[in-house]
């Protein structure tokens, strides 16, 4: 296997006393898609911001045994190298395209700017390239739309512009952080299909971050579940949905409102709330909410292998209830 596009070992992120990411390790290769799922505060976004060196260095402390993108060490990289990385090797799509796009410039201009910066095209080539990219992401009448400003696009179309901007630098790795959360379900389905098509066609490495496990079922080859800044389970998608091993994953799956099951079966809530991240966590972070906890959970469980390429941080893997 060739070296992974993204390699991360034991990532730690702290905002002062708040320990947001507590030892996350992952790897993504070309053509692979990894889904990362977790609630607000699980550390999923903080993890992905670290990949692009986007944390404010005055507010956040980021450390890792290894953090490299395309062979480049992100932690020791200078601001110039990081700028070349973002929008170049790594494309990003965020939840809210209205705040990620500049309201003062036309959609075409913003895409063209990436083309000129990362692909060294001249003004005219870049303008044509921008129109071609808008067409590629399914914006109708791309020539006219290239001359419009972000506020003139609907939520779904704006997200397509954002995707075109991310693709302009011909990235090898695409990071999507809740790209469909603000959208209608119908539009969500279109955006999912679009990103999936692009990923498969260009064999991009894809990391999709979300709080919605149902959404990942279609896109992700592998799924990683984060809780309180730690990986609690990871497995190939088929395995994770069919046989979730960690009680938190089981809980998350049962909270999804499913249309493919009888109406009487209500989504069941996980009682309680995630732990505070500004205090030390003793033992298993999920134990206070866990229906299967026992004495051993006072000690923090490591990731225990549950199958090929699959692991869960739960003592119940060794001692079934």
């Amino acid at each position, binding site marked *: 296997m060739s070296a992974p596009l993204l390699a991360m070992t034991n990532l730690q992120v702290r905002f002062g006393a708040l320990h947001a990411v507590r030892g996350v390790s992952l790897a993504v290769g070309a053509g692979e898609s990894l889904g990362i799922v977790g609630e607000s505060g699980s550390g999923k976004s903080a993890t992905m911001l670290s990949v692009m060196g986007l944390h404010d260095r005055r507010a956040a402390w980021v450390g890792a045994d290894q953090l490299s993108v395309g062979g480049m060490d992100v932690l020791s990289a200078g601001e110039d190298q990081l700028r070349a990385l973002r929008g170049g090797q790594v494309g990003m799509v965020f939840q809210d395209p209205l705040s990620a796009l500049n309201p003062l410039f036309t959609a075409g201009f913003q895409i063209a700017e990436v083309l000129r910066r990362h692909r060294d095209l001249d003004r005219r080539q870049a303008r044509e390239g921008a129109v071609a990219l808008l067409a590629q992401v399914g914006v109708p009448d791309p020539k006219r739309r290239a001359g419009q400003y972000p506020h003139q696009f609907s939520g779904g179309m704006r997200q397509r512009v954002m995707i075109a901007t991310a693709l302009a630098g011909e990235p090898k790795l695409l990071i999507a952080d809740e790209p469909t959360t603000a959208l209608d379900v119908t539009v969500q389905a*279109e955006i999912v299909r679009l990103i999936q098509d692009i990923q498969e066609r260009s064999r991009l490495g894809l990391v999709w971050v979300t709080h919605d496990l149902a959404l990942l079922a279609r896109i992700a080859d592998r799924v990683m579940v984060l809780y309180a800044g730690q990986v609690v389970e990871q497995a190939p998608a088929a395995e994770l949905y069919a046989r979730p091993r960690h009680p938190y994953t089981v809980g998350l799956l049962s909270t999804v409102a499913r249309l493919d099951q009888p109406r009487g079966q209500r989504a069941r809530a996980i009682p309680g709330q995630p732990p505070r991240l500004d205090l030390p966590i003793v033992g298993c972070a999920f134990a206070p909410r866990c229906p299967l906890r026992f004495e051993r959970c006072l000690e923090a469980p490591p990731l225990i292998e549950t199958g090929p390429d699959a692991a869960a941080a739960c003592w119940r893997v060794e001692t079934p209830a």
Partner: protein
Amino acid sequence: MSALSEAIALKVHYAVGAPAWRSRAGPGRVVRAVDGVDLQIAAGETVALVGESGCGKSTLGRALLRLEEPTAGVVRFEERDLTTLSAEHLRQRRAAMRMVFQDPFSSLNPRMRIGEALAEPLLVHGLCNSRSARERVAEMLDVVGLDRRVAARYPHEFSGGQRQRVAIARAVIGNPRFVVADEPLSALDISVQAQILDLFADLKDRFALTYLFVSHDLAVVRHVADRVAVMYLGRIVEMGAAEDVFARPAHPYTQALLDAVPVPDPTRERARIIGRLQGELPSPMAPPSGCRFHPRCPRAMSICQRDDPSLLPVASGQAVACWLYAPEGGAPAAERTPVSLASP
């Protein structure tokens, strides 16, 4: 059966842009947010109103509480016409009909302590004196699963889910009979959504409430709704008992909405054809001719481009506004031929 809340031939239109007298282009443009809706909600019912953003569902929900001024038609609450009520009489009614908003971050005053925010509706409507209000607030915090001591704290100290609990407590504290919840879950994590749905169900039993849930996500409302109304561009296109609509969606738009919801099962999910619904919601300023859904409809026929279907009952129990279900003779056979729609 008399309705608790009722809309009859309701229209809510907004003028946008410059006022007509200043506009050179003649009369100003009009957004037809709600464009001819009949809806009855019986006491004790939970009705879900579903559709994409821009379909007018929030405006309809607000108009039922007369938070929007109707352009035409009637809004009744407990058989009284709200549109002709004086400001004072309307204010007296407000305690009985309340609203929960999508965004618990903006629906609470950041400078008001939780206890003050909860007591406010009681004091405004003269339901309590300030001492008994304090007791009532403490009781209500128990009911929504928050510690009584949070009354002294401010909204920013709470998570989204906790804040939504406060907003719900505030809506329910004055013993209303009717609550309109506008996307009350969509700003929350999936895991928290289930908790808040449980809370809504619990409050309904405890206080004999009637709900209108406004949502873009059919899966979420499926387990709480007795009836579902699907809205498209200012009109209700399908309405019926939740089990009928979910088991046998009749309108092609309802089918598309249901198709769009992901299922947590990779095998099924990868086999599923998604994104079948092409294009975007047309502008409510210039709705398409005939059936408003026809430019996006996979089953459009020639008649759909010309004639507007009305909401009529179909065999499976619900009512549908679609020419596919028009009784024989409703349209000449020639007009039932499918048309191919040019897609860009």
